[in-house]
């Protein structure tokens, strides 16, 4: 079964990590990602730029309104996600635990994937 593992954290805190701390966290996360890839569990993964770089198209009026910033103002922000392919929810939560162990603060939302369209562009 495929799941998205969505990473949430307070971006103000993440910005306040020192360069060394940030590099250490990213290195440890990458180790987990590579390990899970070798185990055949890890699909695409991506990290998002901060919500200050986001733009939102609001469909509350016609034509839709373009506004600066993320869709919702929240205490924690969506910072990125992993697509994983594992047997069941327990296995998916194990992946989230592995990621959580090397990444301070925040939360992981494990969400089953209903439709998955892989990148079909000619590379």
């Amino acid at each position: 079964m495929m799941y998205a593992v969505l990473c949430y954290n307070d971006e103000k805190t993440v910005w306040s990590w020192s360069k060394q701390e940030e590099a250490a966290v990213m290195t440890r996360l990458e180790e987990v990602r590579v390990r899970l890839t070798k185990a055949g569990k890890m699909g695409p993964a991506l990290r998002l730029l901060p919500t200050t770089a986001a733009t939102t198209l609001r469909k509350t009026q016609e034509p839709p309104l373009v506004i600066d910033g993320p869709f919702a103002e929240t205490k924690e922000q969506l910072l990125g996600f992993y697509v994983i392919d594992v047997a069941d929810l327990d296995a998916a939560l194990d992946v989230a635990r592995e990621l959580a162990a090397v990444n301070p603060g925040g939360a992981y939302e494990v969400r089953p994937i209903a439709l998955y369209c892989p990148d079909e562009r000619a590379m």
Partner: protein
Amino acid sequence: MNDLEWIEAALTAARPQAMGALLRYFRDLDRAEEAFQEAALRALQSWPRNGPPRDPGAWLILVGRNAALDDVRKANKHEPLPADAVISDLEDAEAPLADRLDGSHYRDDVLRLMFICCHPDLPATQQIALALRIVSGLSVAQIARAFLIGEAAMEQRITRAKARVAKAGVAFETPGVAERSERLAAVAAMIYLIFNEGYSAGQDEQRAPLCDEAIRLARILLNLFRTEPEIMGLTALMLLQQSRLPARFDAAGEVILLEDQDRGKWDTRLITEGLALIDKAMRHNSPGPYQIQAALAATHARARDAADTDWAQIDHLYAALERMQPSPVVTLNRAVAVAKLNGPAAALAMLDPLETKLSGYFHYFGARGMFLMQLGRRAEARTAFDRAISLANTPAEAAHIRRHLDRLGREHPQPSS
């Protein structure tokens, strides 16, 4: 990252918001700082035990305010202090408090906190020192090291700056539209000062991190004022300049000029973020000096190598900047683009009227010598390069000019006397 490092990062992140709110309550910088300090100490005790609160900022504001009020009560009535257990009930109070203090309230708190550091009577170095102490929360010792002065002298400097700020008084009412935009402009300038302090320090271990701190403050500001194109521009400008850091110095620590930098070393993540922000800013059709400078940096960032630079775009952007902020240095920079587009004669004609204003400016004579050399006016070129060397700010600048002089000598050897 262990617990302590995480808590310290969370305290640093929440500091502007918490300090801003405490300053609004107490209307006194020292009391606000003491309250924050006390709240931070209690966080260090409580968070490892009880887990971090959902909203560290709201927690610190509540605890800081209560602690300061306790002090007042204690001083007045000699009442016993409430037990630590009272603090653990905070989780209940925290959520409604956070909801009540919505983003718009925090916005003006943080802006006010940053703005008091920008008092026009304070010289630039004092503005930076005060902001690093109050907004960023660096220790006096850290700031003193960055400014290469003793801790006691820095302590005195900050105390004096604080006294001046207190005497000047700052409005605590919610600012009107015009006042808010004046505050934003002053704060943007102060943040850019911090950045330049770090940028001009090269690879100095104490000062170079000021660039990252300035970017962090700009992101916090942009987070609160999401629709301000000039704040997007400022953040983009600093991100794009900072993206070149890995390529700016050679092994000996000497500056490598933009055109000679190995662009493969530029930090692509910072470039991507900078380009995204300048894209967003442009949609507002409300250009300003930071956006234009960011667009200039973006034009360089988009070029594969120095030869690939879009000089027409650079010329166009400097022309816009000239109209907005006329300055001989801007015209000089524009002349460099004009030389690439229309040849050295056109560029030289732009430089002539600037000579009196830029008679002590290294880059003026560097550019002048370059254009004269390209026109084959070798003796005049040599005179300009000699002036440039005498005005060079760094050994790298002088070495760069000396290479031009060598070329002049090689191609057209001077008769030996």
